[in-house]
């Protein structure tokens, strides 16, 4: 059924040889390839395409330019399809969104009867009552929404990409094409984008039956398409403008971040509706939409039209309607007089009545309420007020509106363009453009075809000159003969329903009431009325709202000003925003080994680290416990390659370390290591690690896993600042590290190296460079987990081989890989704190019990001065160890649980775990110093409010004499509480 399809139109977009079947609201329809959903439905006589957001009034085609937000549809899992521009696809199963019972019999349209109870600012008034807040929230949530989300919809990883050009022309209309050609001819690499399916803009449909214009447009387009330096992207939207001419371009399949050296906004203008009663009826249509229907889709917009005009475009539209079989029963011109153009004379000769100084007072619905039955017109006085005593009713089935334009200047605003209101044009036009940004065409206030060609040429030349191409700019633009926009195409009506904003169903009276309630500033008015806050972002309503406010406040539109335009100015599909993202992650060289050992990974910063190694039939806790016990009783192996690893060489290397760390290193013996604590300028503990002296001017040192990147950056900065004779090399990724710990660690290692591992030759905290089966390694005898152990540093590419060797050698000792959780437990037993877990952004070494690592008698180190000041003040908290009763049953405390004393917060837990070797829960906590006496009880409040008692205990909990590092001691020791 194609009852409104016209005979073949030259240049039509549809392919009549390819019919398409689809359904809308359960009814089968036919269209053609090249149709949009709306054009196919309109061609079939279906005029109600959707329902309005608030009153659920029937709505049809308004702009056919990507702004008809009352005709959003759903097709399967695809939501909010814009019917006015979305290409029709075979087999679409479409339904209108936001209806209750279908688009033709939407039960929610009963809301309109309650419209007197839904005043402007309804949301604010409704939610003002706390008591009624939940009621309104539930009701509004149930009533509103755009489509039904199917949560099984697959996540579409929409591709993103970068692109570059000398000149980005936004808008492939007449001026945009002209600009692109002019710049490209001078040598610029040009990209031109247009949201429409085909380029050419209004040159293809605002014809006034002028074949010459069509011919010129096609010539221009052909030149652009064949130009070697022009890339033309259609169905691509420039959705925003960011600093340095960075423009997000959106097409159906991807999101492109375009970096352009220059930008020309040839974005055109949005045709504006007139405000009169029932101006939202299906069949009340903008003139450009009617022309698009005709020339793009060969669809007759209506049979009998009343045309409301206030500019030359309107008369051209009348000609196009007549030429294509529409009976124009009257032309209603808001102006007292119009230019006696050839068009007007032609109309008069054809007997078409032209009502000068008249308005459409109201549109009347047909009995089916799916269209127009008549237009009621009347004269207007000089102030635009309707003279209702002279009303006339003219039967028609459509009203075409051509009363003015609003510049599509959103991107120019975002670019920082200063705009001014041109009273003669009744339009905001660019006054001061940012460097490298240009404008042409309608957005620049140039409307006539030939003038747009010239204006585009000028902009192209200016952009080329900005790019450094030799360009002679001597162009004159003739002023418009008549204003393209009427200053007041707004008609009051006592019965209302004269809509200003179709997105939010805002009527003329809403603005009067809002202003009366004090919201008489454009930004306040916007937020109170919600004008321009719907899905079309005010493209059809902002200018009218601005004019209304100007009239109410006695200002000019220029004085009222516009609201802020922010990217994205047009809704962007979430699939594009949530498309492919990049989240880097780091893996140690041993990752595949951990996978084979059934590791369960956790993220530590960007690192994938084994949290523990899963064992069949055992819980996570059991696995961690077994790993810890293996280290205590046999030997364990852990990948510590995530540690920050650095090398510093040079005559001033020791001096550098003295300055950045709180300890003393200049007198370290070669072949030894020492704990190192790093503070910031305020004396706060920020990192720790081990420093190994490998030579007189050569040190190797480690940092925490999370601190590596930031510490390297800071050390590099300090090295540049201090100009010391030393160089720092970041080896974090280039070196791997493995910790072999436990009483048999030495036995395992001795199978693989000739190095004398005796405690005399290789004592605790010593460092040695040697080989393990021909693999060069560095061994540090350290004991973070409290056992005899070796931290083995090796080149990353050799780490897997070394790991394999160690596991093989340790097999006879039941060597057990252990993960981060077991390591945390083991170090807690030893009372070693973790920077960032047992410290925070305010913790000083004094509070953390790390004074022993701070040498205040040094001449200088970062944080020293602050510590000197802090040392004179009483400390507010101190880190203590605590234990729960061995017989404790129930929920144990967790990290961050609070210490309570006399109903006051007296501290917090930083670490807590069940120690299998001590057979009780142990932990670290900060408490007020006066509560920190050994053997005192502290009260810990759990999440459910329960209080658990714990006993303050000296640390280390395990092996306080460090006897595990001595050669002849293997007995376990436990602190007696």
């Amino acid at each position: 059924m194609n009852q409104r399809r016209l005979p073949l139109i030259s240049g039509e977009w549809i392919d009549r040889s390819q019919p398409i079947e689809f359904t809308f609201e359960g009814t089968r329809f036919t269209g053609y390839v090249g149709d949009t959903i709306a054009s196919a439905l309109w061609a079939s006589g279906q005029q109600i395409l959707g329902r309005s957001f608030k009153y659920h009034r029937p709505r049809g085609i308004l702009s056919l330019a990507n702004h008809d937000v009352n005709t959003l549809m759903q097709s399967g899992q695809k939501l909010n399809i814009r019917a006015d521009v979305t290409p029709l696809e075979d087999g679409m199963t479409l339904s209108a969104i936001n209806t209750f019972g279908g688009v033709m019999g939407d039960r929610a349209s009963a809301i309109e009867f309650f419209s007197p109870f839904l005043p402007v600012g309804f949301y604010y008034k409704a939610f003002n009552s706390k008591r009624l807040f939940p009621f309104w929230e539930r009701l509004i949530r149930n009533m509103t929404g755009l489509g039904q989300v199917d949560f099984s919809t697959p996540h579409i990883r929409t591709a993103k990409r970068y692109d570059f050009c000398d000149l980005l022309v936004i808008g492939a209309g007449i001026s945009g094409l002209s600009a692109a050609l002019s710049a490209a001819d001078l040598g610029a690499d040009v990209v031109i984008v247009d949201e429409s399916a085909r380029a050419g803009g209004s040159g293809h449909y605002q014809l006034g039956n002028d074949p010459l214009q069509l011919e010129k447009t096609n010539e221009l387009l052909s030149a652009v398409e064949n130009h070697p330096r022009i890339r033309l992207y259609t169905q691509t939207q420039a959705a925003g403008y960011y600093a340095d001419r960075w423009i997000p371009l959106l097409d159906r399949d991807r999101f492109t971040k375009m970096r352009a050296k220059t930008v020309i906004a040839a974005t055109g203008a949005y045709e504006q509706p007139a405000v009169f009663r029932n101006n939202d009826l299906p069949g009340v249509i903008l003139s450009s939409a009617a022309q698009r229907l005709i020339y793009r889709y060969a669809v007759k917009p209506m049979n009998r039209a009343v045309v409301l005009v206030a500019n030359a475009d309107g008369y051209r539209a009348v000609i196009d309607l007549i030429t294509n079989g529409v009976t124009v029963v009257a032309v209603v011109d808001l102006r007292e007089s119009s230019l006696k153009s050839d068009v007007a004379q032609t109309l008069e000769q054809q007997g078409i009545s032209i009502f000068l100084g008249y308005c459409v007072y109201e549109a009347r619905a047909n009995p089916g309420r799916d269209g127009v039955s008549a237009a009621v017109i009347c004269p207007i006085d000089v102030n635009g007020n309707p003279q209702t005593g002279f009303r006339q009713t003219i039967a028609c089935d459509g009203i075409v509106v051509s009363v003015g334009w609003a510049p599509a200047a959103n991107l120019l605003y975002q670019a920082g363009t200063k705009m001014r209101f041109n009273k003669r044009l009744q339009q905001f036009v660019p006054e001061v453009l940012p460097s490298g940004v240009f404008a042409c065409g309608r957005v620049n206030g140039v409307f006539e075809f030939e003038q747009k060609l010239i204006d585009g040429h000028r902009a192209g030349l200016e952009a080329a000159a900005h790019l450094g191409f030799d360009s002679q700019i001597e162009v004159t633009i003739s002023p418009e003969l008549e204003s393209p926009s009427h200053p007041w195409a707004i008609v009051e009506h006592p019965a209302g329903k004269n809509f200003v904003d179709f997105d939010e169903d805002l009527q003329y009276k809403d603005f009067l009431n809002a202003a009366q309630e004090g919201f008489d500033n454009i930004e306040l008015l916007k937020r109170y009325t919600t004008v321009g806050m719907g899905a079309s972002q005010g493209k059809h309503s902002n200018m009218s709202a601005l004019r209304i406010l100007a009239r109410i406040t006695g200002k000019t539109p220029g004085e009222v000003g516009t609201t802020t335009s922010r990217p994205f100015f047009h809704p962007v599909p979430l699939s594009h925003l949530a498309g492919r993202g990049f989240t880097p992650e780091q893996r140690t060289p041993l990752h595949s080994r951990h996978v084979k050992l059934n590791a369960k990974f956790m993220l530590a910063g960007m690192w994938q680290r084994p949290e523990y190694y899963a064992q069949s039939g055992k819980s996570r806790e059991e696995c961690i416990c077994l790993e810890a016990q293996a280290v205590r009783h046999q030997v364990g192996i852990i990948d510590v390659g995530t540690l920050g690893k650095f090398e510093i060489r040079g005559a001033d290397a020791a001096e550098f370390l003295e300055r950045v760390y709180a300890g003393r290193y200049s007198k370290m013996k070669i072949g030894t290591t020492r704990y190192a604590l790093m503070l910031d300028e305020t004396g706060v503990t920020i990192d720790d690690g081990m420093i190994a002296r490998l030579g007189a001017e050569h040190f190797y040192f480690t940092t925490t896993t999370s601190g590596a990147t930031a510490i390297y950056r800071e050390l590099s900065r300090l090295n540049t600042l201090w100009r010391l004779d030393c160089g720092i090399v970041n080896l974090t990724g280039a070196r791997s590290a493995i910790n072999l710990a436990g009483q048999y660690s030495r036995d395992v290692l001795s199978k693989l190296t000739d190095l004398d591992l005796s405690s005399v030759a290789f004592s605790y905290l010593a460092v040695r460079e040697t080989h393990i089966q021909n693999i060069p390694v560095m061994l540090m005898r350290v004991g973070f987990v409290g056992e005899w152990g070796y931290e083995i540093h090796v080149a990353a590419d050799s780490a897997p081989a070394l790991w394999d060797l160690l596991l093989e050698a340790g097999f006879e000792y039941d060597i057990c890989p252990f993960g981060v959780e077991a390591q945390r437990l083991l170090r807690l037993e030893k009372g070693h704190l973790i920077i960032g877990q047992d410290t925070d952004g305010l913790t000083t070494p004094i509070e953390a019990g790390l004074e022993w690592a701070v040498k205040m008698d040094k001449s200088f180190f970062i944080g020293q001065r602050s510590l000197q000041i802090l040392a004179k003040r009483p400390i507010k908290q101190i880190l203590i160890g605590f234990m729960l009763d061995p017989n404790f049953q129930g929920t144990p405390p967790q990290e961050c649980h609070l210490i309570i004393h006399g109903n006051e917060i007296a501290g917090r837990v930083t670490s807590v775990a069940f120690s299998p070797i001590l057979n009780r829960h142990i932990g670290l906590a900060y408490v007020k110093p006066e509560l920190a006496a050994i053997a005192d009880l502290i009260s810990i409040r759990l999440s459910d409010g329960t209080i658990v008692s714990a006993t303050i205990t000296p640390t280390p909990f395990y092996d306080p004499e460090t006897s595990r590092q001595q050669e002849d001691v293997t007995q376990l020791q436990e602190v007696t509480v």
Partner: protein
Amino acid sequence: MIRRISPNHDRLQSLNGTWRDINGMPSLVSIPGDDRIVANLGIADLSFLTRFGVKGAGAVAWLESQKLEVPDRANTWKPLPDGGIIARLGLTEFLIEDSLHSSFALRLAEACQSVPAKVYPVLRQDAAIVLCGKAIQDLLRQTCSVNFQALSLAEHPVILTLMVGVSVTIIPILPDRYRIWCDGTFGAYLWETLLTIAQELGGGVVGVDRLI
């Protein structure tokens, strides 16, 4: 015993390819059908090549004393005799990577056992990748914000930038051949991400025999 392992080794193991030990590292040298891919968009692992890094105010003089022709500008590179690359990563930092037929890196590493003042050797354990084929720019545009087509390859540019969020060094050797180095710990992520996009573009993994 195989000792060296590429950061990308695990990503390549599932491919039904042919392996060969190169510089002590198992390396994927060919994959059935990679001859069809290589012209469009191929990605190959070159981590097996030996390389050496050095930085410091004395680095230029020291490298010249080792009979190496040093790039005279920061962020440029020069070819080494018998293939290979010397890249100047900044004012005073250098990456030297051998070809299969040269051994500068090993020689410099040995010479570095005793280096003069202000010369600091840098252990290089990079994930090293090569991209090839006519669709390289499509891949780069999806992964990196640098406009590579604006570069003059005759000037031998070296680009230090971010690619898919990872710090990388990129050298466009030819219009259809780009070298990429990154910290080996990011290698698996970079490889997987680039390969996913390359496959969308009709590309895939190729063996190094297609390229060297």
